[in-house]
C-alpha cells in the first residue's frame, strides 16, 4: 500500500520552483558498455543531440556534452529507442525549450526484442518530463517477403534481353499435362530473367508504410540547410533552413494523409480496427488522475477544497 495522503498535495509547490536538470553525473562508460547478453539502459541523460531532436539548433556546448555518449553508443552498436523529435521534457518556465533528454538505448542483443517506445500514451503526472512506456517482445516471424521494386527496374535493358530470350518450343500434339509443364517452365524462365535484373525491397517491421523517396530527399535537404544555417549564421540561411523544415514536415503530413486515405479506401474486415484507429484515434488523458475526480472540473474542485477549505461560519453573536 502506498502511504501517501491527499494532504501531501502541499508539495505541489515543486511546480513553481522546478529548476533545469543537473549536469551529467554518469559517465558514458558507466551507462554504456559491452555485454554478452541483452541490455537496456534508460534515464534522464540530460544531453541534446541531433539524433534525438533533429529540429533543434544545437549549441557547441550541447554537441560536446552529447558526443561522448552517442559516440560510445555507436561504437558498441547500441540503438537509440527514442522516436526522433518526440519531446520528453516540457519545461514549466517559458525560457526553456521542450527537449528530448529522456533517452533509452539497447545493445544489439536486446534490439530484436524492442517493440515500441511511447511518450504519449500515459497521462501527465505533473512532472515536466513525460512518462515513457517501452515494450519488449520476442521478435515475431516476419511475414513480408522481399518484393521486386518494379518502379526501379531498368526496363530498357530488360527489353533488349527479353527480345533475345529463347523459349523452348511447345511439344507436338501435347497432352494437357505436357502443355501445363511447358507453359510453367516458359513462365518461370521469363520471370526469373526479369526478377534477376530487378532490385528487391527489404521490408522491415520498423519501416514506415507511408514513407516515400521524396521524404528521404527532403530530409536530406532539411539537414543540409540546417547545418549550413548553423555554420553561416545569416538571416538568409536561417530562412532557407526554416523553409526546408516546413517543407519536410508538410510533406510528411501529406504522405501520411495520402496513405491513410488509400488504406481506408481498401478497408476489409481483416483490418477494420486499424482503420478505426486511423479515423478515431484514442485520446490521451491530458490531466493527472486523482481519487474521486474523473474530469478537469472535479480535479479543480478537489484541489480547491483541499488548499482553500470552506471556512466555518462565524458563531452567531448573542443579542
Amino acid at each position, binding site marked *: 500500500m502506498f502511504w501517501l495522503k491527499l494532504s501531501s498535495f502541499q508539495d505541489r509547490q515543486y511546480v513553481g520552483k522546478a529548476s533545469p536538470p543537473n549536469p551529467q553525473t554518469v559517465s558514458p562508460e558507466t551507462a554504456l558498455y559491452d555485454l554478452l547478453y541483452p541490455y537496456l539502459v534508460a534515464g534522464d541523460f540530460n544531453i541534446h543531440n541531433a539524433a534525438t531532436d533533429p529540429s533543434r539548433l544545437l549549441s557547441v556546448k550541447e554537441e560536446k556534452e552529447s558526443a561522448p555518449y552517442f559516440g560510445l553508443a555507436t561504437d558498441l552498436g547500441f540503438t537509440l529507442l527514442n522516436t526522433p523529435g518526440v519531446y520528453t521534457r516540457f519545461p514549466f518556465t517559458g525560457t526553456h525549450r521542450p527537449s528530448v533528454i529522456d533517452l533509452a538505448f539497447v545493445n544489439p542483443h536486446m534490439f530484436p526484442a524492442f517493440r515500441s517506445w511511447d511518450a504519449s500514451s500515459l497521462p501527465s503526472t505533473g512532472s515536466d518530463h513525460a512518462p515513457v512506456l*517501452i515494450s519488449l517482445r520476442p521478435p515475431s516471424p516476419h511475414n513480408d517477403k522481399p518484393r521486386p521494386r518494379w518502379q526501379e527496374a531498368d526496363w530498357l535493358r530488360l527489353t533488349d534481353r527479353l527480345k533475345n530470350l529463347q523459349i523452348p518450343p511447345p511439344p507436338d500434339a501435347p497432352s494437357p499435362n505436357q502443355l501445363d509443364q511447358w507453359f510453367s517452365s516458359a513462365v518461370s524462365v521469363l520471370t526469373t530473367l526479369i526478377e534477376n535484373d530487378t532490385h528487391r525491397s527489404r521490408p522491415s517491421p520498423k519501416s514506415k508504410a507511408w514513407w516515400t523517396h521524396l521524404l528521404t530527399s527532403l530530409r536530406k535537404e532539411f539537414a543540409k540547410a540546417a547545418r549550413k544555417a548553423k555554420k553561416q549564421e545569416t538571416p538568409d540561411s536561417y530562412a532557407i533552413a526554416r523553409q526546408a523544415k516546413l517543407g519536410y514536415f508538410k510533406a510528411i503530413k501529406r504522405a501520411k494523409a495520402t496513405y491513410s486515405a488509400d488504406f481506408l479506401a481498401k478497408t476489409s474486415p481483416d483490418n477494420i480496427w486499424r482503420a478505426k484507429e486511423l479515423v478515431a484515434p484514442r485520446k490521451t488523458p491530458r490531466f493527472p488522475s486523482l481519487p474521486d475526480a474523473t474530469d478537469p472540473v472535479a480535479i479543480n474542485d478537489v484541489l480547491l477544497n483541499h488548499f482553500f477549505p470552506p471556512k466555518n461560519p462565524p458563531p452567531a453573536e448573542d443579542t
Partner: protein
Amino acid sequence: MIEKPYNSTRHGLAPAINLTLVQHNSLSSWDVFLSLFCSLMEGHPVDLVLLQDPPSSKGFLPCYAGFKSFAPPVSRPTVASYVSQSLLQKFGVLPFFPPETDDFMAMDVLTPQGCFGSSFPRFRIGNM
C-alpha cells in the same frame, strides 16, 4: 522431510517473453509518484518502473502495492527501480550498483530458460 520455504515454481522455469517498462523523472515529488502509479494501475500491467529523482523521506522510498523498490544505498537516491511482484515471482532479480557513482543502477533479471525468444540466461536493465 523439510520442505523449501519458497514456492519451487519460481525463478525462470518459463522463458521471459514480454516486458513492459516505464521510465520517468518524478522530480522528487510524492504527487508525481502517486499520479504515475495510479495511472499505471489503470492500463496494461507494467513490470518495471525506472524512476529518476524519486521522492524519499529519511532514506526511505515510497512503496506501492504490487511493486518492490530497489535503489542505491544512499540517504537520498537519485534513481530507483520498482519491480512488479509478478515479475519477481517468475524470475530472480539482482540489483547492481556500480561503485563509481550513486546516480546509476542496473538490475540483472535471471532467465535460465531464455528471454525474448533467445537463449540468453539473463538480461540487464540500467537506470540513470
